[in-house]
């Protein structure tokens, strides 16, 4: 009973369910399961690599990934690219190189100076600044995706539901704003992002299935890793810590019983 009370104090504060749905309220997220969920969850390398490809070929046209460095792509617990693959990926990006030793930031034609990416670089953003991003996107700012799954309730489920949540019919009486799209998983239901994926849009290098659901699932996995790159470490160390603490507590219990053996209390 003691422990029930102890746990109840923590849980009692978190029990919460919304009451009635109104227009614009988020629809319950889709129930998909990911390999990295649960206390022992680990990423699926193939999903991570597919998700990276979806980000690279589709999302990165509008969304930055500012906090992710190329060198993390071949690190343990990540997508599992080889060092050579990672360096090739980095070199495939053009990153800002100005100013040069003459103090110039643009070349003769007025284009910004760039160089090929190296492992220490981060993913370069698609737009030079917020204003350029808004201008290109009808006034809306595509958010940076590095932390998106920790910054939205539901995490990977949110991203998956949102990407696969277009093309639903709005309820009667709900008017979709001009130049916006109906998506019941987006709070307010009017989203500026057009449906980003189509069936077969990304051809995976290993020929894996590429319906919208597959692509969304893969990119939701990839963005879970960008949000929490040390998730696998955390789960692995966590298991060890639990075993240690349970054994330690067992020994402490025995010593406690031993000390109090002949003492009434």
């Amino acid at each position, binding site marked *: 009973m*003691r422990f029930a009370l*102890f746990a109840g*104090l*923590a849980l*009692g*504060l*978190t*029990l*919460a*369910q919304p*009451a*009635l749905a109104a227009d614009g309220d988020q629809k319950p997220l889709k129930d998909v399961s990911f390999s990295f969920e649960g*206390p022992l969850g680990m990423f699926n390398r193939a999903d991570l690599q597919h998700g990276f490809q979806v980000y690279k070929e589709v999302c990165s046209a509008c969304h930055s990934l*500012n*906090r992710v460095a190329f060198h*993390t792509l071949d690190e343990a617990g990540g997508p599992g690219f080889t060092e050579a693959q990672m360096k090739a990926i980095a070199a495939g990006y053009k990153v800002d190189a100005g100013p040069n030793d003459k103090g110039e930031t643009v070349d003769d034609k007025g284009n910004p100076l760039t160089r090929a990416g190296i492992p220490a670089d981060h993913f370069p*953003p698609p737009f030079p*600044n*917020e204003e350029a991003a808004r201008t290109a996107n009808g006034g809306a700012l595509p958010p*940076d995706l*590095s*932390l998106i799954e*920790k*910054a*939205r*309730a539901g995490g990977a489920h949110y991203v998956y539901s949102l990407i696969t949540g277009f093309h639903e019919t709005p309820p009667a009486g709900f008017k979709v704003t001009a130049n916006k799209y109906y998506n019941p998983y987006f*709070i307010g239901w009017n989203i500026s992002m057009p449906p980003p994926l189509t069936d077969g849009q990304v051809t995976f290098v290993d020929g894996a299935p590429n319906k919208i659901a597959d692509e969304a699932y893969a990119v939701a996995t990839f963005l879970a890793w960008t*949000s929490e*790159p*040390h998730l696998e*470490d*955390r*789960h692995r*160390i*966590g*298991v060890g*810590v*639990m075993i240690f*603490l*349970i054994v*330690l*507590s067992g020994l*402490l*219990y025995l*010593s*406690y019983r*031993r*000390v*109090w053996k002949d*003492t*009434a*209390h």
Partner: protein
Amino acid sequence: MSGPSTYVPQTGFTRWLDSRLPLVRFAHDTMLTFPTPRNLNFWYAFGAILTFCLGVQIVTGIVLAMHYTTSAMVGSVPGSSLAFDSVENIMRDVNYGWLLRYVHSNGASMFFLAVYVHMFRGLYYGSYKAPREVLWILGVIIYLLMVMTAFMGYVLPWGQMSFWAATVITNLFSSLDQVTGGLKVGSHIATWLWGDFAVGDATLNRFFSLHYLLPFIIAAVVGLHIWALHVPGNNNPLGIDVKGPQDTVPFHPYYTSKDAFYVGLFAILFAVLVFFAPDFVGNPDNYIPANPLVTPADIVPEWYLLPFYAMLRSIPQKLIGVLVLGGAILTLAFIPWLDTSRVRSNRFRPLMKQFFWLFVVDCLILGYCGSKGVDATVPGVPLLPLVWVARIGTAYYYAFFWLIMPIVGIIETPKPLPDSIAKSVLGAHAAPAE
């Protein structure tokens, strides 16, 4: 309570030191031989658990501070701040930085979980009653310092909730404008707290400075708290005084072993949170960099402050709401004199015991109200706004201390108290077992 010291220095050095600075004698008397009631139960382990929490927070905090950048200025990531970036750097690039940060951020929750159990335990067994009034008040001061420290710590990552929590809380002072006329005393206080005309870089810097300072003040007050504990000695579940050596056992090895076991169990719960649900108590909005131009849909504090937040929001008039909030914590300092009963422990107070458990439930309900939006209603009852539940909850919170405690203490007939701890423990159930 400690009685004459039984320490006998064994070596030449300790004899030499003992006549100059009796440090070893002090440690011996307070941590080893200190006579402690033999009937302390599980709930008394939370003193040791809290010491553990304070140690964890200070050690992880010092290392985190080595990697943290105190600046609201924009760094290399557009739309973010150096402070936010440095926290992400800790999470991604610092070796085991994610572990340090998750231990520290969840450590705050575990610290408050433990302190609430500790406070409810003191309330249930009447540990605030004479001669332990100063001990209790020092506890209230520690709690107040903890609230301030936790609040300022929450601001440091400079996410959306950090920024808006800082804005809401510091703006509470501006409610004083309502009674100071053209002088605008409240606004001046808010400006002075910010160090600017809005929450910004100056605010973040002073919050970090104070967030680093206050834990050491807490540690000092904890020292006083333990000193004040060691003069009258521990209260116990029976709430009766220790009559002699037959009622006590030495702190070591009896309570060192018992506390260590419960600290172990507490650490298991702590580790579950850190390793398997590190963002369980957090708000997703705090992973969005602070943006003064975008107000989050719901500004909610961390769970441990929700009951007070519910009180604040339940009062439509801002200044009165602030006073009700402050009064709720201040009230705790008066408990030793509000309780008129001559019996300490609720084990022997059949009527007060019921009001006590109702009070625990009341705090949980207030916490629930605080976690919901301003317009939320009772689940399934659209006509009953939660704000009214919070009002009733707030009324009960105050009534519990200012009406029920004094009145019940007078009208209640307590059950007979056992003669002594030893008799209760050794005699065949001389006291009502619990």
